[in-house]
């Protein structure tokens, strides 16, 4: 009797495992984003530049007999990229001497590079046909890489855009001067300001990436 009970228990446990929960309605997965890496920053953004971008990618045909018959695929994505320029707010210096305020604006920086969400639709993507003989698919990884490479390139270009960097600095000067003068005026204190702009410096890590991209471009143009 005990054995029968035991066997019944095993069957009762095994049945749901064997047939899954196919009888039940599937519940949608609800996933809550996890917050990570919280850090205090101090950034004043002063300019947002909108660029019309076309990321032109080529997925080359593979090598080896498994890839015979493949063709190079062209993949273009058209979208609007936004570059935010600004300054490190905590590096601002305000000094007073004989009633004259000297405001030193630190080097401008590229604070963020992003894709304007609404500019990226399925219509923004154009791609060439695949080979009849052997498929050379533009996979999800290829698509991610194309967009990521384009954005990285945009960031490097943004750092090298001296006009934007100067504009970001001068706008920061205007904002800070206006803020300080408002307080001085409210208190009835005479206000005279001198704005000094620090030289714009590209961080070493970014400069290294620019140099690397440049050398890669040079070597590819030589190969052509």
């Amino acid at each position: 009797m005990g054995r029968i009970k035991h066997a019944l228990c095993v069957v009762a446990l095994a049945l749901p495992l064997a047939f899954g929960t196919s009888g039940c309605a599937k519940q949608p997965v609800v996933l809550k984003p996890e917050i990570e890496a919280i850090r205090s920053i101090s950034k004043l953004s002063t300019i947002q530049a909108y660029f019309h971008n076309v990321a032109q990618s080529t997925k080359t045909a593979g090598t080896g007999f498994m890839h015979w018959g493949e063709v190079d695929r062209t993949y273009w994505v058209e979208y609007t990229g936004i570059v935010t320029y600004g300054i490190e707010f905590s590096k601002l210096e305000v000094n007073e001497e004989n009633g004259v305020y000297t405001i030193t604006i630190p080097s401008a920086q590229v604070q963020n590079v992003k894709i304007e969400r609404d500019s990226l639709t399925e219509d923004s993507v154009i791609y060439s046909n695949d080979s009849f003989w052997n498929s050379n698919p533009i996979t999800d990884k290829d698509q991610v890489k194309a967009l990521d490479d384009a954005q990285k390139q945009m960031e490097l270009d943004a750092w090298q855009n001296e006009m934007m960097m100067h504009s970001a600095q001068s706008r920061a000067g205007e904002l800070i001067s206006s803020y300080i003068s408002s307080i001085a005026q409210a208190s009835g204190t005479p206000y005279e300001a001198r704005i000094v702009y620090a030289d714009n410096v590209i961080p070493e890590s970014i400069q290294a990436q620019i140099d690397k991209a440049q050398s890669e471009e040079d070597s590819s143009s030589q190969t052509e």
Partner: protein
Amino acid sequence: MEKDKNKEKEQLTGSSSSSKSTRSKKARKAKPSKMATALGWFRELNRTARTLVTCAIALAIAGGLWLLVQGASSIFINRPGEMITTLRSSLEKIENSSSLSTLEYTYNSIVPVYSDEEQTIERYFVRYEGKVTMGINLEDVEINLSTEDPDTIIVTVPQVTIQDTTVNPGSLEYIFRDPAAMTETVNVEAYQLCEKQLEQAANQDESLKNIAAENVMNELKALTHPVSAQLTGNVKVVYEWAE
């Protein structure tokens, strides 16, 4: 007589056989094998030259083998193609901004994508990493003299809000439930969905606003300090949050 004749014969035959062997030796010497002919010049070289020639031949053989392996590998070792991207960019417009960001954090999340409205048939899952920045708009800071106390300057600071949300386009990773969902435009669709989810999540999350607000206050006080230090008499600066 006969013996003498035989001796003479023997001598004659003996001499003839020995002359044969010397001739054959001479013939051997005169007609060396093809190999010996080919390597004849090699033997004539001095030791250093021989070593150099041997090294050159060994290198040539090794190079030949390498080329052979390369040729074979290009056929038998399969490598998929690479994605090479160049960007063509042109400036559309410039907008002024005055956002003071004091807190930044990253979100990691997964967006499930369904093929039906009831959300029962899964197409794919996309994982992403996004960045959120919080702060204020510096231009919205108001500075006024207090109506109650003429010696008090009131700096009214706007409430902290989400300043920006950005999905890192290189962070997207997929798991496909439906292979047909893996199209050439899947990344564009997924990116939009990730952006929407990130924006919603950031706006719903109030937990970090206090830290961002504290940072804003500290930054503004630090900036104003050189001016407030010069204020004469009983004049003081008071900071308060806007409603």
